């Protein structure tokens, strides 16, 4: 295998500054590509706010890593803010690093136009794009949840979308979709981290043959040992990891605990490891705090607050189960892969990416989405049944590693090239 590929990975943020579910896989893939024998070199370009506004400047951040002071001007249409830099800084970078492949991990904070700018700089460059959520399909932050509510949205259409945004016309949504699809035409292959997400994009308009499922990769490691139990203790500690937003379903968990009889409740412990509650709407904060206080007083709830990546293993070691109670579809929640990597079964909502990534009865359990009573019963039952925990833990298969993920992408390209030449 000759090291012929030169790969530029683009991302809507650098994980050094934005530790998110899209930025981390993008960055890790950039590093995994670099190690791959078929890759001559790889580069990373991330949008970044350096406090000077979107001036279009590109500056280095470590070896082969660049920050781009770019953002989006119109989030509805996803237009670039600093258009001139597409033809200067970005074009210069492309000419200098001469990529054979651009692996775009997003267009948020960069705008859709950079795909065309890359094509323009060198029409021979192949472009693949990983889709992280449903932004192209759904103007409501890509959640596919009805705007201003927590109702799940099952389909996109001009008239459905207009109802979520009464200020917009059906024509506005046609234009939005036309713009996304037109720029998406520049992409050779799409990657979906879950089959659920892939199907949503196929329904929306991406030809099935142009989109494949490749799970996000993880840093390989051996599983944690089971949490040591004290005398009479059960597998009763549940951990939540992630952002605390109205769509992550924290309130469902808190209501579930509150709904249990006190005697049952005291047999459980829920640990919340989450950030950003303070950035949520005031009434949501008030609601969560109102549910939280009595549970903390009883010792049923431990509010651990935010965590840094290096703290993840330590916090996972303290719990038996990881819970993912999101009330939106998710695509491929990173926390599920991390839980499996650490040998912790996962209890999650029975929709979307969660239903897909957790196999009910094999490596975790499904709970009807948003149903606090079902969560109460499930947590009570699981805490009481030690055998179930052992069985589900045994069902966990190690998730895809970074290097396997990189290999899968390169295989996809090779397969396509072979298909094209055949």
């Amino acid at each position, binding site marked *: 295998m000759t090291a012929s590929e030169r790969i530029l990975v683009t991302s809507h943020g650098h994980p050094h500054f934005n530790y998110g579910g899209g930025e981390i896989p993008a960055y890790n893939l950039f590093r995994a590509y670099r190690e791959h024998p078929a890759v001559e070199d790889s580069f990373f370009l991330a949008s970044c706010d350096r406090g000077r506004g979107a001036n279009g400047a590109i500056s280095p951040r470590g070896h082969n890593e660049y920050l781009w002071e770019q953002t989006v001007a119109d989030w509805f249409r996803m237009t670039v803010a600093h*258009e001139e830099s597409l033809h200067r800084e970005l074009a210069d970078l492309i000419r200098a690093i001469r990529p054979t492949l651009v692996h775009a991990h997003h267009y948020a904070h960069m705008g859709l136009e950079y795909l065309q700018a890359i094509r323009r700089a060198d029409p021979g460059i192949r472009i693949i794009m990983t889709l992280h959520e449903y932004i192209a399909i759904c103007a409501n932050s890509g959640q596919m949840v009805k705007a201003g509510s927590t109702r799940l949205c099952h389909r996109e259409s001009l008239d459905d979308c207009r109802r979520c945004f009464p200020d917009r016309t059906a024509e506005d949504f046609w234009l939005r979709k036309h713009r996304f699809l037109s720029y998406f035409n520049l992409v050779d292959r799409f990657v979906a981290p879950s089959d659920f997400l892939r199907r949503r994009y196929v329904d929306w308009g991406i030809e099935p043959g142009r989109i494949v499922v490749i799970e996000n990769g993880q840093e390989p490691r051996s599983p944690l040992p089971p949490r040591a139990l004290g005398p009479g203790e059960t597998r009763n500690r549940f951990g939540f990891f992630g952002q605390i937003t109205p769509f992550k379903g924290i309130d469902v968990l808190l209501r579930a605990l509150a709904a249990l009889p006190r005697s049952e409740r005291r047999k459980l412990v829920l640990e919340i490891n989450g950030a950003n509650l303070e950035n949520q709407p005031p009434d949501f904060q008030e609601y969560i705090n109102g549910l939280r206080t009595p549970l903390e007083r009883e010792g049923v709830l431990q509010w651990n607050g935010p965590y840094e990546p290096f703290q993840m293993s330590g916090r996972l070691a303290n719990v038996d189960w990881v819970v993912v109670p999101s009330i939106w579809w998710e695509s491929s929640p990173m926390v599920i892969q991390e839980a499996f990597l650490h040998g912790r079964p996962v209890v999650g909502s029975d929709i979307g990416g969660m239903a897909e990534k957790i196999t009910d009865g094999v490596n975790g359990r499904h709970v009807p989405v948003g149903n606090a009573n079902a969560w109460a019963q499930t947590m009570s039952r699981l805490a009481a049944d030690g055998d179930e925990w052992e069985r589900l833990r045994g069902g966990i298969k190690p998730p895809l590693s970074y290097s396997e993920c990189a290999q899968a992408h390169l295989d996809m390209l090779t397969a396509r090239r072979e298909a094209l030449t055949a």
Partner: protein
Amino acid sequence: MTESAADAEMDNRASRNGVTGLMGSLSIRPRGARGGGKLRAPEQPGREPLSINDGRDKLFVEAAYRVGKKLLIVGWSTDLGLEFFSAPGRAIDARCRFRHRRKDVAQSLDLRSARDLGFLLELDNRKDPRALLFRGSAEPEPVAWFLPLRERIEPSHWRIVGESVYELLTKERPGSKAWHETRALIPAVPAETGKAAGFIEGVMIAPFDGGGVAYGWALEEPGKAFWLEAGEGWVIGLGETFRQPRRDVRALFPGRAPPNSDAGFIAFLPDLDEESTVRLCCVTADGQSVVSELGRTHALPDDPLGAAQQLFGVETPETLMGARYARIDSKVLSPLVQRRVEQFRATPEIRQDFGTSVASPDVSIIVPLYGRYDFLEHQVMEFCRDPYVRSRCQVIYSIDQPEIVDGVIAEGRKISRLFDFPLNFVWTGMNFGYSAANNLGARIATGHNLLFLNSDAIPTDPGWLEQMVETLEAHEATGAVGAQLLFPTGGIQHAGMRFEYIDRFRVWMNEHPHSGLASDLVAEAGPRVVPGVTGACLLLSRQDFDAVGGWDMGYIVGDFEDSDLCLSLRARKRLCLYEPRARLVHLERQSFSGLGLGSFRLRLTLANAQRHTERWASVLANTSEETA
């Protein structure tokens, strides 16, 4: 009958429009007048009553008035069988209108009854008789009376002649010489006297000495004749104005408005300036009065759309709008439109090119821009991926709104550079309208064919334009080719146009058959002849375009420019074809959203429809058999 009852009867007769019949038999050829016996004829109008019937009766002629083609003669006689005629041996058109009470005569002559002593005679003025012959019922020979002609009607006589004068005035065309002469005889009275109701609600003055429009209402009860006048002696009768029902006026005067009468009026006044005072006047048998006057006139703007907005603000039932436009609004608007057209022709274009367009293109794509221009990127993205458009076409954006030029040029530069796609921009710095924008684009077009494309019409797949060109060039007789346009939600927006006569509005309208249906319901393999195609996507040859003189610029933000173009082609024996294999999405009317869809928009459409109907009535009737 008491004296007062008899007075009342006289008044009653005087106010009735008719002859009493009492003296009807007198308008006959005089007995014994043949041969012209000796007349007792005073050379001057008599100052004293004349004795007749051997002194038993008296006769007095008080005044004669020329009223148009008639002479009205007022006098009295105690001989109720009196006969009169204008010349011996001639039958003349003379008759007694009525006899009436003359209490003053009865008192002065000490008579018991005043009844029927007075008379009003009417005869043809054409012969200009200077004297009239009277024969008492017991006289063998007539007596002549030299007619005492008066310039002005004596106030005491108005009650007697008023009804006749009113009748004669209303027979003349208001503003004619005869009308003015008759009117000059009529005494002015306060508006309350005539009990006439009417109001001038507004006056709008067209720029460039183009006259103006006055509008309001008048309650045209029997016995009341209205007219409008302005300045010096300039008059039109309400019959010459556009009339329309006014339910509010009817409600204001319950029972007074005659059934089926239209109280509302809108008048075009050709001689009017901002200094003018417009008066609504009325004459009744009581005299003439100014019912309403308005000196605060309102100046209309010189742009046709602005003027139309203000004119169409004057309410009219929509069913009458076309007729009103033909009679009133067009007289103000057409000169403004024509002036615009001349101004457009004299205005040089400004152009900016990004990139170099292909030399001698097959097609120049001309897109007029007004309002939104975010579609530009969408169109270019589709042009770009179409090899035919990329290699064989010139793309011209014609900017019809000065305010957006900077924005469009910035966007054009950005899009042209990002997609490496040459674009031409052209503008004048004025807003001349859709047709002018198309014609402006054609000024700089170098293509063998011209495709006029709305900015919100976006192709769905490559190949559409090449297909249209193939269809156009397949037959010599093909004049225009239109495409299948779909709504963004997928239904058909355009699959050819047909023309339909709308009885309610009395105009022909453009109809889009199959609108909203899924395209597979009307699947067609190839092109079809249709009455017309939409200008949202219309292909024709440069040669035909020049032959018909381009887009007609006489409509105001119309919906008929495209059908007008199609009908012009038809008039030159060129057919319109609908090509279903060329398919685009049309976000219809997104670029015009600023104009709204309210009553103004509808009125404007009806006005344009009226113009379209007038221009093409016969051709339109011939197309109605065709299907689209």
